[in-house]
């Protein structure tokens, strides 16, 4: 893949919408091409910014005037009429806004809200937005953040109060997103390969992958992938398309407060460290130097621990975890797979067949012995006859 091809597909790649093959080619190209890798990161950020734009609510009275126009069956305005009516329309619009404002302000004050409320920014903004409609008349109190799939109900660890959910900017919500899926797939091996491709296609990675034979020869597998949290929903949706979803569990843990707390205590600790360094410079005797250095060592240890925790949290926020449990449907496994798979299965069947013959022979043995004995006796009897 060259840069021109890559540029054309970069957006689709960033969204996880390339085929596994294209995504693999792209991943390979990005490893070698700094420029395209930077462009991918830039696209991802731009898309993320747009996703954070809130829904703009229709002003009050919108529905009524729309319905009035529908009822009036006023024909769609032609461009010419639009021009001709322009000054009048402007005046009408101003009048309407004034009237609306007069009507709406007391109402808004009464309700303690504002006239035109922006809805919660859909943080994930994935492919399932059409399922995501907020019911109209939602009060600003309810406009918290929706980070899990919309049908997941309330998320744990999410404060749903209005005061706690002002959006964006300085305090971007830090949410650790995790999903656990149980999928029934035709082939565990095939599915885990596809999952790995999907994850790597969005610059994620496979954290662990295993497979084993369960009861009745049913293959089982487990794959855990980490994907950039922007891509969480799109990857999840595409993973779900790989088989029949038996169980789905999506969780979001809001760690904004923890991150802020740790950042604050880190700043504090660093200030303390500086103060001790100053003291150290002014220390008069060895004993004092020792005491201060002991204190410094303790503070530096705490700084390291705090930094480690922050790094962990940031990593967990930046990369969401998707754990997928895979199983093949029960019953005879379909004859898929490569030549070796087939050969091994054929051999197993052959061994079974040989076994069956031996057992059948064993069953028949007593009868055979009787028959042979009988035959000898008969021959003797014939010979003994004159």
């Amino acid at each position, binding site marked *: 893949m060259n840069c021109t091809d890559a540029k054309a*597909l970069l957006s689709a790649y960033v969204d996880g*919408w390339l085929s596994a093959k294209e995504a693999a080619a792209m991943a390979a190209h990005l490893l070698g091409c*700094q420029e395209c890798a930077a462009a991918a990161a830039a696209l991802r950020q731009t898309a993320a910014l747009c996703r954070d*734009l809130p829904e703009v609510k229709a002003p009050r009275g919108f529905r009524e005037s729309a319905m009035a126009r529908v009822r009036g*069956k006023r024909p769609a305005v032609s461009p010419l009429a639009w021009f001709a009516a322009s000054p009048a329309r402007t005046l009408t619009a101003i009048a309407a806004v004034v009237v609306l404002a007069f009507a709406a302000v007391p109402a808004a004050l009464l309700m303690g809200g504002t006239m035109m409320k922006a809805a919660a920014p859909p943080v994930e903004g994935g492919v399932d937005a059409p399922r995501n409609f907020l019911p109209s008349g939602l009060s600003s109190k309810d406009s918290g953040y929706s980070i899990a799939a919309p049908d997941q109900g309330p998320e744990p660890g999410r404060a749903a109060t209005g005061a706690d959910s002002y959006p964006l*900017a300085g305090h971007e919500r830090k949410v650790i997103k995790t999903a656990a899926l149980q999928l029934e797939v035709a082939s565990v091996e095939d599915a885990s390969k596809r999952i790995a491709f999907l994850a790597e296609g969005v610059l994620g990675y496979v954290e662990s992958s295993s497979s084993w034979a369960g009861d009745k020869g049913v293959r089982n597998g487990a794959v855990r992938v980490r994907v950039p949290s922007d891509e969480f929903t799109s990857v999840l949706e595409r993973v779900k398309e790989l088989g029949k979803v038996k169980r789905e569990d999506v969780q979001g843990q809001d760690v904004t407060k923890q991150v802020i707390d740790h950042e604050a205590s880190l700043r504090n600790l660093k200030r303390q460290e500086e103060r001790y360094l100053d003291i150290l410079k002014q220390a008069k005797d060895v004993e004092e130097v020792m005491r201060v250095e002991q204190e410094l060592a303790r503070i530096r240890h705490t700084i390291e621990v705090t930094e480690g925790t922050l790094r962990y949290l940031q990593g967990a926020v930046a990369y969401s975890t998707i754990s997928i449990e895979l199983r093949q449907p029960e019953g005879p496994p379909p004859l898929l797979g490569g030549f070796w798979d087939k050969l091994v299965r054929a051999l197993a069947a052959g061994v079974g067949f040989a076994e069956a013959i031996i057992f059948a022979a064993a069953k028949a043995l007593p009868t055979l012995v009787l028959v042979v004995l009988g035959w000898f006796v008969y021959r003797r009897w014939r010979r003994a006859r004159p």
Partner: protein
Amino acid sequence: MEDLALVERCRDGDESAFAELVSRYEHKVYSLAFRMTGNHDDAQDLAQDVFVKVYHSLNRFRGEASFSTWLYRVASNVCLDSLRRRGRRPAVSLDAASGGDPSAAGDPRPGPQAAAEANEVQAALQAAIASLSPQHRAMVVLRDVQGMSYEEVAYITGCALGTVKSRLSRARESLRGTLSRSELFQPYLVQTDEARAKKGGEKT
């Protein structure tokens, strides 16, 4: 009740069913119109046009897509038509939008300073989107702002899936170009090419 059942009732002449549909989608359609035009006056006009048009062409809805997707298709066409018409005369409202009345784009919610900053950023982002060509604008608004899938975007804009992919790439690129020229977005775009190059340089 399902959208489709409501559509059926509308076809039978039940106006209240259509009112229900309007109330379900008014915010989505309004939001789309606002993001496409960049100002509230046009958004209100166009969003109402959308519902009038939908009401009169319900018979043409054959259920080839979900009602909501079909509705967005009508909405997107209405907005694009209007933008095209406006393209032939001075784009007054576009300039007004980028001139930046911050309260126009976001919700002046009483609250911490962060919210005010967010509004400023959102208004500037909206202005940047409004500076794109109508077709690019549609891509960014449908896919990134409204969060639709590629298939939905393809259906709504009547483009092939491949066209959506490449057009969205170009749209995001040019949006990115506009944003990186604005100081307001520097904190959000830390990992620009230069910053990356610098980081790389420090490491080696």
